């Protein structure tokens, strides 16, 4: 997480839609299911392999941004299939062009 922060990632707290402290909001965002799955995937697969995630809802803006950074920092391709479409994250960019 620190690495992606260094690259410029700041958690977009607007996506934590609860009336709580900022720090708590950050923590809540950090445990969205996509992030959990991506980290698990990174931990358990070899470098260069593609990580494929499936999500039952639309990917939230913060996870989308974070995943872009993660893909850049770890040099891995991450493909997320959400309820509506695919997002191919590679080298810090998403195939949806941030329009989803």
């Amino acid at each position, binding site marked *: *997480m*620190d*690495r992606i*922060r260094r690259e410029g990632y700041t958690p977009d707290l*607007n996506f934590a*839609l*609860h*009336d709580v402290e900022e720090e708590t909001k950050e*923590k*809540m965002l*950090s*445990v*969205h*299911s*996509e*992030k*959990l*799955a*991506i*980290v*698990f*995937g*990174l*931990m*358990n*697969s*070899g*470098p260069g392999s593609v*990580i*494929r*995630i*499936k*999500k*039952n*809802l639309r990917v*939230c803006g913060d996870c989308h941004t974070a995943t872009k950074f993660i893909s850049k*920092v*770890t040099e891995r391709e991450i*493909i997320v*299939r959400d309820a*509506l*479409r*695919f997002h*191919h994250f590679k080298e810090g960019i998403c*195939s*949806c*062009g941030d*329009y*989803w």
Partner: protein
Amino acid sequence: MLAVFANSNQQWNSTHQTLLLLQKCKTSNDVNQIHARMITSGFINNTNFTSKVITTLSSSPYMPLVEFARYVFFARHAFRMRKKREDPYLWNAIIKSYSHGVEPKQALIVFCLMLEIGVCVDKFSLSLVLKACSRVGLVKEGMQIHGLLRKMELGSYLFLQNCLIGLYVKCGCLEFARQFFDRMPTRDSVSFNSMIDGYVKCGNIDSARELFDCMPTKEKNLISWNSMISGYAKLGDGFESASELFEKMPERDLISWNSMIDGCVKCGKMNDAQALFKRMPKRDVVSWANMIDGYAKLGRVDLARALFDQMPGRDVIACNAMMGGYVQNGYCKEALEIFHDMQCERDLCPNDTSLLIVLSAIAQSGHVDKGIAIHGYLAKNEFPLNGKHGVALIDMYSKCGSIEDAISVFEDVEGKNVDHWNAVINGLAIHGLGELAFDLLMEMERLSIEPDDITFIGVLHACGHVGLVKEGLLCFELMRRIHKVEPKLQHYGCMVDILGRAGHIEEARNFIDDMPIEPNDVIWRSLLSACKNHNNLNVGEPVAERLIGMDSSNSSSYVLLSNMFAGHSMWNDVRRVRVMMKERNLKKIPGCSWIELEGIVHEFFVQNKSHLQVGEIYSTLDNPGTPSSLVTPCN
């Protein structure tokens, strides 16, 4: 079999033996060997023998034998000198091999040749060629034959009249068939049943019933009752009539019981279906498959599976029903397991339908490796991809994330139909390749391939995902004005989505107001979603209230409303909505992600704490100090 030739005690001077050997052949290689023998022995010149060859082999289930019969006929019999009024039984055998086989149209061509050469046709030739015409829908040619029939004064034969009714009914000319039927001096059960069946198949159950009721009792048979029952059973509201007839019928057979069960299944009356299933004196695969399918349609995969497990002697149809049931209800893993079991069991060979269902399961689950394996199987067994299998493959690759493979399959298909185009356009849509999808629509226009309503849904979706508002509007107009396709709710929904996502909230709202048909909740929810994304509370709040009014049990409307309030930091309103949800016992669908590694699917819910490696995962997310853990290869 052919090792028998080595034995020198074989009676080679016997045509009888040769004929017996011929009948044992299965491949063209076998046939060629016997043919060679026929030439060297001179039997090929024996017209008695060759006649027997033709009549015996023309009805064989093995194509090489049928083709040999045809070859012998055309080489040895068709064009020789003949007596006047000779019995055309050999011509009839050849015509029958076509009219009852795989190329019915050829029967007509052989018949025309008969007439051209001047061979005397008889009533059997006519009945066979009429059957061929009815199989392919050649009504004009059939009418010419009808004319010929009248000229030959054969019009009084009842069985020929029945062939004519069969022809007109199968070609959809019901009124014409009925006129002919009414003019018949005598009719039998075949005449009545053909008319009834024709009416039932085109949905005119009332005319069918009228005929059925005035049918003389001695002509009414099981086929008549079964046609009526299955006709009523297929209608949504015909169940009562079907039951009434079912209880009244003098005797029943398997088809009667299966039709009733099918009717129950269509109405969702599984209890009635179950009662019938228990009462049935005998069951066949269709009965079990219908029941399994019925439970699956109601979402009761557990009951469907229980039946499947109980079934004595499962076959492909039942397996397909179970697999299909699983896929309908989202249980892709279980569907794939059934397919795997089918492949392992010796007498259960997956058929075309099995492959379609399994491709659908793979598309849902995203297991692209399994999809590649099925593709390999299709290629190895030379399945043509210009039909449903090609479409299913394109769809599978698209939904598994391999759009390049989907496009590659699409490009390789020879003789694409509109479904192939639809599948690839849809694939492009979900991959955000909107411009390409739109280009494909233009390509379809150039190639004069008529798009259908699904094509337009795909293109509109594609535009929506990439924000191509202009192209979306163009596509909508193209659909309405040029192709005269009446937009359905889904098309309107897509347009609202395109406008909404691009931030044109007012236009989207106006679009809904201008709709000629009543918008449904999906359309309103698209607008609400767009309002939430662009923080437009003015339009959004009344839409949300309206949605909640329409269906107070759908949690997503409440969630969107509360998120909109949260976006404006209107915490009191957020609390109010959440309390409303709690009072109505509604829960937000929790976010869930899946990842497959080494064949195992791992599931993660938001704030999940149940996974084995949860400690490590959370520590990586919280603790900034161990960056190397992110790039360590797996153990």
